[in-house]
């Protein structure tokens, strides 16, 4: 690291804080001058699904004043952020508050004066859309914390979706489909691992190539086998939702968090396991050591290459489950290129979340929310085109890599093959 590039990095750091503060202020201005000014009447949110045991009254709020208030708050917080040097925790709180305020203002505006917004089903589809994103992002965390860049999440999702659908359909067992989907993701991860670790192929290039490979292979097999034998090979059942006894009956929260398919519960478990594993155990300390400084890790006796193989494959198994959730979680069939870029959103979520499982999960939920909005808001006659809502995760990620996420956030040895000297 030369002096020149250090100077450059300091400049970046200074710019970043101001840039983010400015973005927060701009979001506040949007709250006021777009959402506030153009909101007429009340926004009504319904919280009760048909057939729920406890009925929660609808919430009607005057949209415009709420937007003004939230906008003013965001502007104050944004200016503080740009001007005052915060430590990490307040930084995060401010970022969270501004984002939440923006989301609420947006929802108020999009529903003001229209038919009531079904809040619970919006959040349910958020959770559903987030499952592959969270699992994909965790796959990315596992790989990249050990020093292997994983662009192939997209391919792992796709292969998982394909294998899950075919096996579940052919053998009539959803659990077998889930297992095979996971293994298929793991198989692509094996390719990724062998070619990057053993043959030292550039990891970004290989990821892209593997995505093309997975897309070509599943597309070929789809046309060759799944189309002619649709009923036998591509008509799997889907997992039925499991309601958790007590928690599932809580109004509002119950149906959102505790009344879903096994995939959502597996996702909870995966987030917890990966977070605890990476940051609270000796295992995780070693993984991170390998990702930051493989030579040092090797010196103290950690098996660098083995750690990388294991983590990449573990990641692939997780992403494969995420893929299976696409086909046998809700849809009930495999479609050509059905992952449709979600692997890349997962990658973005991981980067947005600064290579941490919890951060990545938060980002994935946010991205899942924008996907769910695109689906749900169209039905209530929201004026914003769904294309823009679908574009949102990508724009947010560009803003994030330009503003939030510094160069220094990635593990030091991420993307660099390790040669024992």
């Amino acid at each position, binding site marked *: 690291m*030369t002096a020149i590039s250090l100077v450059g990095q300091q400049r970046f750091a200074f710019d970043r804080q101001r840039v983010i503060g400015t973005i927060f202020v701009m979001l506040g201005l949007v709250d006021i001058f777009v959402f506030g000014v153009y909101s007429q009447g009340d926004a009504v949110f319904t919280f009760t699904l048909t057939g729920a045991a406890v009925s929660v009254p609808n919430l009607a709020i005057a949209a415009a004043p709420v937007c003004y208030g939230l906008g003013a708050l965001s502007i104050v917080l944004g200016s503080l952020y740009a001007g005052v040097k915060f430590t990490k925790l307040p930084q995060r709180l401010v970022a969270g508050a501004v984002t939440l305020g923006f989301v609420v203002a947006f929802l108020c505006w999009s529903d003001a004066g229209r038919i009531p917004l079904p809040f619970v089903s919006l959040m349910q589809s958020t959770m559903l859309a987030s499952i592959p994103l969270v699992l994909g992002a965790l796959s990315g965390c596992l790989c990249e914390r050990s020093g292997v860049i994983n662009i192939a999440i997209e391919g792992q999702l796709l292969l998982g979706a394909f294998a899950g659908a075919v096996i579940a359909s052919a053998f009539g067992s959803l659990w077998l489909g889930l297992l095979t989907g996971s293994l298929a993701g793991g198989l692509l991860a094996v390719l990724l691992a062998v070619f990057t670790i053993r043959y030292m192929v*550039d990891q970004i290039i290989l990821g892209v190539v593997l995505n093309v490979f997975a897309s*070509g292979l599943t597309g070929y097999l789809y046309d060759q086998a799944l189309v002619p034998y649709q009923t036998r090979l591509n008509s799997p059942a889907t997992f039925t939702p499991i309601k958790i006894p007590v928690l599932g009956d809580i109004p509002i929260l119950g149906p959102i968090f505790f009344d879903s398919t096994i995939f959502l519960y597996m996702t909870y478990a995966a987030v917890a396991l990966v977070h605890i594993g990476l940051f609270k155990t000796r295992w995780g300390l070693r993984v991170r050591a390998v990702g930051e400084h493989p030579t040092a890790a090797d010196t103290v006796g950690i098996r660098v290459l083995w750690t990388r193989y294991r983590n990449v494959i573990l990641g692939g198994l997780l992403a494969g489950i995420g893929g299976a959730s696409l086909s046998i979680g809700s849809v009930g069939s495999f479609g050509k290129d059905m992952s449709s870029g979600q692997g890349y959103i997962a990658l973005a979520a991981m980067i947005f979340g600064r290579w941490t499982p919890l951060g990545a999960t938060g980002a994935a939920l946010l991205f899942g929310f924008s996907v769910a909005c695109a689906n749900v808001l169209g039905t209530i006659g929201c004026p914003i085109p769904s294309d823009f809502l679908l*574009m949102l995760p990508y724009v947010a990620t560009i803003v994030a890599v*330009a503003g939030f996420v510094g*160069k220094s956030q990635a593990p030091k040895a991420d993307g660099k093959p390790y040669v024992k000297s």
Partner: protein
Amino acid sequence: MSEQDVGPEGGGTARPAQSQPAEGAGEPDPASATAAEVLSPRGSGVGTQLLNAVLEGSSAVVTILAILLAIVIGGLLIAFTSPTVLHAWSHLFSSPGNAFAKAWDVAASAYSAMFEGAIVNPHTITAAFHGGSTAAIFNPLSETAVNATPLILAGLAVALAFRAGLFNIGATGQFIGGAMIAGWIGYAVHLPMIIHVVVAVIGGFVGGAIVGAFVGDLKARTGAHEVIVTIMLNYVMEFLILFLLGLTVFRAAGSPNPISPTVLNNATLPHLAGVNLRINAGFLLALAAAAAVAWLLSRTTLGFELRTVGANQNAARAAGMSPERTWVKVMTICGGLAGLAGASVILGTDFALTPQIYGTYGIDAITVALLGRAKPGGVVLAALLYGSLNAGSVTMQAQTQIPVDIATVIQALIVLFVAAPPFVREVFHLRARRAGSDGQLLAKGWSA
């Protein structure tokens, strides 16, 4: 694509972004005949040179073996997903000959159909002697050229960025930017003959360049990694074109589908060999662009700068160059090249904007650039190979009902193997070469 590409630039040093410059730099590449004839310590005769190249697996040999390996695997995939072959193999022990013969038949017929669709179909020659059309003979080659045109241009966009140490995954987004502006000029603006098509093509370059420049500028200013930004921009542009085609400005009058009006006749790229063959001036444009990039790389200050920045950023900075400014320039040119690819499609073959206009060109461009080892000549050859696979697979699907996606599988496998020379050497039991002599493309992480 072996000797001539190494040509004026010598052996190892000119390769894009070597992973281990300390070991590899300065070593003459013993495999390339031109450099090796003068410098190689081993063997003197051309025959010995050739033998060494084959045994050691030079880059050309590895490329050829990679293509062979991919075709063999593709053939196995074709054979063992075919119902007739699987049926024959279920009776393997009663009639083993039949099982192997069926597998061979299916794969061979698929590949021969592919050849007929990409190079030449013998039936059209005999038909021509009996009064058929002569244009039909050249139709496969024309299709190959048409398929290769956007791949050459977009491939150059990726390859040039590689040389500057940047990984441009954003050819898709830049392609859309170019196609949108070229298409809009094509159908909405009225200009005289020739001038119209020239303006539309320039518009395509500008459209792509804007998208590319944004990436370069963002990287220069904030250090945002170009891989992330380009991936995200691809999707932003995909949704942008979807949104625009929903507006009346971009939508063909009265059309229920998201499709733009048809490009005016004045703005279409002229056919090169009669109206029956789709080959058009876009192919010449692509070849000219490749020549221009070759010239840019080897004969201009900017080319020298970008190769230096690509090889070693810190050295470039110490020598007074500004990597940041170079990134912006390079990404602008790369974006423009991908934009030209968009223009060549909208003005040459498709004639109307659709939400799927970008196809898979942007992603294929990456594999083309890798197969062409980020050299303009290599990119042209690789794009022709991919163009022939794409053109051939369409005929193959028509004749044998084998899905076109097999071409994608073969292409991905080729690049997978080309990117991993040690793997190919292991498979074919070739001698290992010295460390660092493979000149791996661009090995860097997020923080580089």
